[in-house]
């Protein structure tokens, strides 16, 4: 891979700052894990996250004791926070896969500095997402019934149900993401093994590095494997959230039964995912002094992807409203009208504000390259995407076909406990990750440096 020479007109800096050498890159990234002292800030952050994680513990325990009735779900709104948060978390994961797979295949070298972190984020987000459907079954200890396995009931799961497709989509996604992430880690784990000072650390990282010795044969196999995994992961970027959208689109509920759902969900997923990468990356690059590796160019690029997907999502909202109007169907028309003016109208307009209006600021390069403002925008987008799922799930369900079965949905304290608990779990995992594993792909960064290019002897 060539070091990227940027045309002058882009004044946002290179993918890696001048002055770095092969050794300095390794030192800097590996040093965060091996040399950096445990700081008070990190301990505080970890403890805080871990404390919030206990909400999940309490919420899940109470749920298992009492049943799903402790949540705010009811008839007609049988899908509450569980589905909203599931879709939200799964969506967040998508940025990681996009960055690691599609951008790899497209040879986008700026991804090298952020892909490891984004993949870890994917993995953790999918873990959080997985909690919700399992808890929503009400009897999580029987969740294995979702899998097709030989059983004494002579039964298969319902293969015609999109909820089962979800099971396959998400487990495949988790497996591929985990394998891809780990395979990518191996050369860097070997670097850590070789740099570590204490024998205990050396052996730990040595075990994890699986005997990686940097031989040419290893590298050749590595390249092949990561290319194949990227090929496997690429369709997942599109397919996973498509299947998630089928949970809605395959049903006949007004507002859900639309063909635009799959692309609109995928765009939304990437949108929220990039917002989350920005939310996490901006503080990390500041606290760990990584401004020279995760440069303004990265932030600029990610902000551009965020803006592009925001526009697709905006198109989706417009089309939803148009479909409702154009369908000439009483229920569809009422649904969209109720969504805009009904009891949950505040959520809808907040969502428009967060997801369509706010990202318009990203047209300005100045904003795209100012980390602080970008961070705030990214948080607003995260909230907006959560609101989107809330609006989709709740407004369509709470006004049933028959006015006699209309109802309202409000989350209970246990809904919030589980939701905030998964946020705590996510943050705990992120804090541990930045501490024990290299959060940036060292060897891929080194490839970006001028030293990495070897002049081939001219054949005679």
């Amino acid at each position, binding site marked *: 891979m060539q070091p990227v020479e940027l045309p002058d007109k882009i004044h946002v800096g290179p993918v890696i700052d001048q002055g770095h050498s092969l050794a300095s890159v390794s030192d800097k990234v590996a040093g965060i894990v091996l040399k950096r002292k445990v700081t008070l800030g990190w301990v505080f952050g970890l403890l805080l996250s871990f404390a919030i994680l206990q909400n999940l513990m309490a919420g899940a325990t109470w749920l298992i004791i009492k049943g799903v009735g402790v949540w705010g779900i009811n008839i007609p709104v049988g899908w509450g926070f569980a589905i909203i948060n599931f879709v939200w978390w799964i969506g967040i994961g998508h940025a990681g896969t996009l960055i690691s797979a599609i951008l790899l295949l497209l040879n986008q070298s700026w991804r090298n500095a952020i892909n490891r972190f984004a993949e870890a984020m994917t993995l953790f987000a999918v873990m959080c997402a997985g909690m919700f459907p399992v808890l929503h079954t009400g009897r999580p200890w029987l969740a294995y019934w979702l899998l097709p396995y030989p059983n*004494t*009931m*002579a*039964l298969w799961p319902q293969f015609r149900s999109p909820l089962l497709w979800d099971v396959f989509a998400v487990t495949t996604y988790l497996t591929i993401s985990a394998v891809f992430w780990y395979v990518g880690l191996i050369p860097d784990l070997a670097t850590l*093994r070789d740099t570590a000072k204490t024998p205990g650390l050396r052996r730990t990282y040595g075990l994890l590095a699986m*005997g990686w010795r940097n031989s040419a044969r290893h590298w050749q196999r590595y390249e092949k494997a990561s290319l194949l995994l990227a090929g496997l992961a690429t369709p997942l970027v599109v397919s996973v959230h498509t299947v998630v959208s089928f949970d809605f689109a395959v049903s006949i509920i007004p507002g859900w039964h639309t063909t635009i759902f799959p692309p609109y969900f995928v765009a939304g997923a990437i949108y929220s995912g990039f917002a989350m990468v920005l939310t996490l990356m901006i503080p990390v690059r500041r606290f760990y002094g990584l401004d020279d590796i995760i440069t303004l160019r990265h932030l600029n690029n990610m902000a551009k992807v965020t803006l592009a997907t925001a526009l697709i999502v905006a198109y989706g909202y417009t089309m939803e409203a148009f479909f409702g109007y154009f369908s000439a169907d009483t229920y569809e028309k009422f649904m969209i009208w109720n969504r805009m003016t009904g009891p949950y109208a505040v959520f809808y307009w907040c969502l428009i504000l967060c997801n369509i209006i706010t990202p318009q600021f990203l047209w300005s390069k100045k904003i795209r390259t100012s980390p602080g403002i970008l961070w705030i925008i990214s948080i607003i987008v995260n909230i907006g995407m959560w609101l989107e799922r809330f609006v989709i799930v709740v407004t369509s369900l709470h006004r049933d076909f028959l006015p006699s079965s209309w109802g309202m949905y409000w989350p209970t304290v246990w809904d919030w406990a589980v939701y905030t608990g998964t946020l705590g779990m996510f943050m705990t995992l992120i804090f541990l990750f930045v501490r024990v594993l290299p959060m940036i792909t060292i060897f891929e960064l080194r490839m970006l440096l001028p030293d990495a290019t070897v002049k081939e002897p001219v054949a005679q």
Partner: protein
Amino acid sequence: MPQLFKSSANSFARSSIVVAVLVLGGLGGALFELIADSSYATRQGDAREQPIPFSHAHHVGSMGIECRYCHTGVENGPHAMVPPTKTCINCHSQIWINSSTLEPVRESYRTNESIKWTKVHDLPDFVYFNHSIHVKKGVGCETCHGRVDRMPLMYQNASLEMRWCLECHRNPEKFVRPRQFVTKMGYEPAEPQETLGPKLVREYNIQKLETCWTCHR
């Protein structure tokens, strides 16, 4: 840099993959066999202790008492019914009147308190089951309960797993018999079951009831 691991570590690493697969696979299989599918779990073939060692082998096999003499509910209701003490006393007021084994029966008759039999065929509460429809459609007692005439103490002949129910619900023609032979023990079809079965299925209008809500109502 010194060597971290001995060269034998390579063999360990490689064999750990095989061992992991074998151990996890074996553990899964063993758990399934032991927990879900064993007669230990289903209590199939497990003769239960009863307050009185009532022998079906004696009453049905040697005496030739018909099932419905005692289990009066079987044709008309959901439960075949364990007979009241009065049914026992019909005969046991005349024979074995001094038997100490039968003292609990006489006591129950005197005090009007039921004998506390141990239920052998106990379906989970989430299963709806009705004897009468099965008897009406030509499912023999023996088909589910086995050779009761050979059981000194009652035991569960079948696993009562859902899989076992579905065997018949999916292919009733393999098990159905003419109505007049429903209570017959050791029944042999007069013509091959392959031809008799489908004929009876048509005649009795037997449906393949496979929906969840047939049994889980």
